[in-house]
């Protein structure tokens, strides 16, 4: 299809759109909040799209997680041991694994299990955005992309200090243009659709429930 490529580029270049250069960049003031306001804004926005938000000291989240697992009747909870939180979770149910499940190897080996046997998956998060109530995930080899997508419940751990004011601020501060992961994801609530009569229905293809544990310093 090299012909197509050169023909298209040739037409575009010949046209030389003759538009005036638009060096102008209208400034758009970005919202700014204090750390406490960020947590509040984030939680309020998340809850408005039916996500569940728990603000919990970083020494208390394991207990909360166990409570949630039993409260929601989560039979199988997927997590990844080689992560910051992995060992704490692995030890949470004592000597028995309880509901905990892990998956090793590549998706071809566990796709079937992920689709049919996992009630909930727990992942960490890269950051969050207060303005829109958004989680930012940079899935990696420890926590693959499908973990936050396929199981009916997604539990996300978020450090409060990783909440940024706006998406623009996050991209600028971390200089995302210098290196993006295979997949960067913004997640704002559980999966939903309004395709039938503009009526919101949750859990269309992705998780039916999104639970965020915001970890604050104890």
């Amino acid at each position, binding site marked *: *299809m*090299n012909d*197509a490529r050169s023909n*298209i*580029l040739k*037409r*575009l*270049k010949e*046209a030389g*759109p003759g*538009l005036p250069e*638009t060096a102008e*960049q*209208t*400034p*758009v*003031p970005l919202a700014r909040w204090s750390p406490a306001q960020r947590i509040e804004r984030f939680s309020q*926005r998340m809850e408005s*799209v039916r996500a569940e938000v728990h603000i919990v000291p970083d020494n208390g989240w394991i207990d909360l997680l166990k409570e949630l697992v039993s409260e929601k009747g989560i039979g199988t909870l997927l997590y990844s041991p080689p992560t910051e939180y992995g060992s704490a979770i692995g030890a949470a149910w004592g000597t028995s694994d309880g509901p905990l499940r892990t998956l090793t190897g590549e*998706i071809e080996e566990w796709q*079937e299990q992920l*689709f049919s046997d996992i009630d909930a998956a727990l992942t960490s998060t890269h950051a969050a955005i207060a*303005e*829109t*109530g*958004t989680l930012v995930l940079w899935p*990696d*080899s420890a926590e*693959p*992309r*499908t973990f936050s*997508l396929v199981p009916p419940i997604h539990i996300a751990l978020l450090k409060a200090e990783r909440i940024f004011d*706006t*998406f*623009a601020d996050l*991209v*600028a501060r971390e200089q995302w*243009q210098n290196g*993006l992961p*295979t*997949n*960067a*994801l*913004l*997640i*704002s609530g*559980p*999966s*939903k*659709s309004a*395709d*039938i*009569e*503009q*009526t919101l*229905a949750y*859990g*269309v*293809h*992705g998780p039916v429930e999104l639970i965020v544990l915001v970890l604050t310093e104890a």
Partner: protein
Amino acid sequence: MQQSVEFRGRSREALGNEQIRSNFRQAMDGLMSKRKASFPDQDELRRLRLRAAEIRANALLKLPELLERLEQRCHENGIQVHWAESTAEANAIVLGIMQRHDARLLIKGKSMVSEEMELNHYLEAHGIECLESDLGEYILQLAGEPPSHIVAPAIHKSRQQIAQLFRQKFPDIPYSEDVDTLTRSARTILRRKFNQAPVGLSGVNFAVAETGTICLVENEGNGRMCTTVPPVHIAVTGIEKVVEHLADIPPLLSLLPRSATGQHITTYFNMISSPRKPGERDGPQEVHLVLLDNGRSRIYQDQELIQTLRCIRCGACMNHCPVYARIGGHAYGTTIPGPIGSILEPQKAGLDRLGDLPTASTLCGACAEVCPVKIPIPDLLNRLRFERVRSDGDNLTPGQGSQRHGWEPTVWRAWSWLHAHPLVYRLGTRIASRLRWLQPRRLGNWSRVRSTPRVASRTLHELAAKNGFNDE
């Protein structure tokens, strides 16, 4: 493919369909008020729109350069880039990829470009099953209908109609008109397919040249499924969707969902920069990006009409269009309906075939008022009205001058002559006012629903002189 010669017939039919009219009216009223509520700060909105228009104008200005950079970055990231001049070429590219993988099932996320390509039809003719996974698109695929709105494709259907459709297609599932139950049924059916499909296809909302990143905006998660679970992902896009910088994305993302549905952000914003890397444990092993021209580079050559290509497909123009609200999307007979469709589609398919569309507007300006990238849609409609009847063409817009026929040009010449000859005009209007008793009682279609306006007994020219308002 698109026959809009019958626009008038179809719009008449839609106007007569109470169900369609009330479905659209309600839906559009809802979308308009949600959009309004999502922009409480008018100054922010003003600045965002200016910024977004600048971003898109800049991207078009540098389009060839940005496409090359995008290709280069994608290549470095391991994404395979394909170029297609026509929809036929794009279809062949997709088919080739499918055949190379011996794939018989394609699972699709929402993509207006794939609608433009009529990809499903094409692949099915080659023995490949295509399955739409966006809930609205899935419903329409079951019904065998095209979308009637670019963001909410099944907006013309009531839940009862959808329930009937499910009963007919899946007699084993208990009948329900409950939205949650219907949604759950679709989830169950489609999950099995996501788990099996060898190839997933998506559209592209933005392609970032700087980083070689494909961005997808969605709520349901089917877009993530299509781009994550199958071993092969194909993204199809028009060449105009590229932006220069990653920093261009936040302002566009801030405007797109709010303009479209009044949501502050969609559930998912999915940024894909490469296939599965060594050590990574999921994601497709191959990612393909198909860049489709199909007339866009021709539109690009006109300094005014190029603005058509700024569009980010939010649908706000149709949500706010009083014509669209009454006739719905199907009446247009094009992939993209509503005001943006009425400027874009005739430029692609030709004014000879879609020459009616630029006239299907009162030029009320509601579309331009809400367009997040400030496309002057009424100006471009006006321009295409010129193109459809112009006699001295530059042969850039297909079908130029094709609607110049019958009495119309003569009538306008006479009209122009009369109004450019003040003496004749004054004499004529004076005679009309004196002979107003001769005025016809009915004026064609006008008088079918309106009283006929009456010529006054004296013209303003006469009254002005009589009341001492002088010539100079």
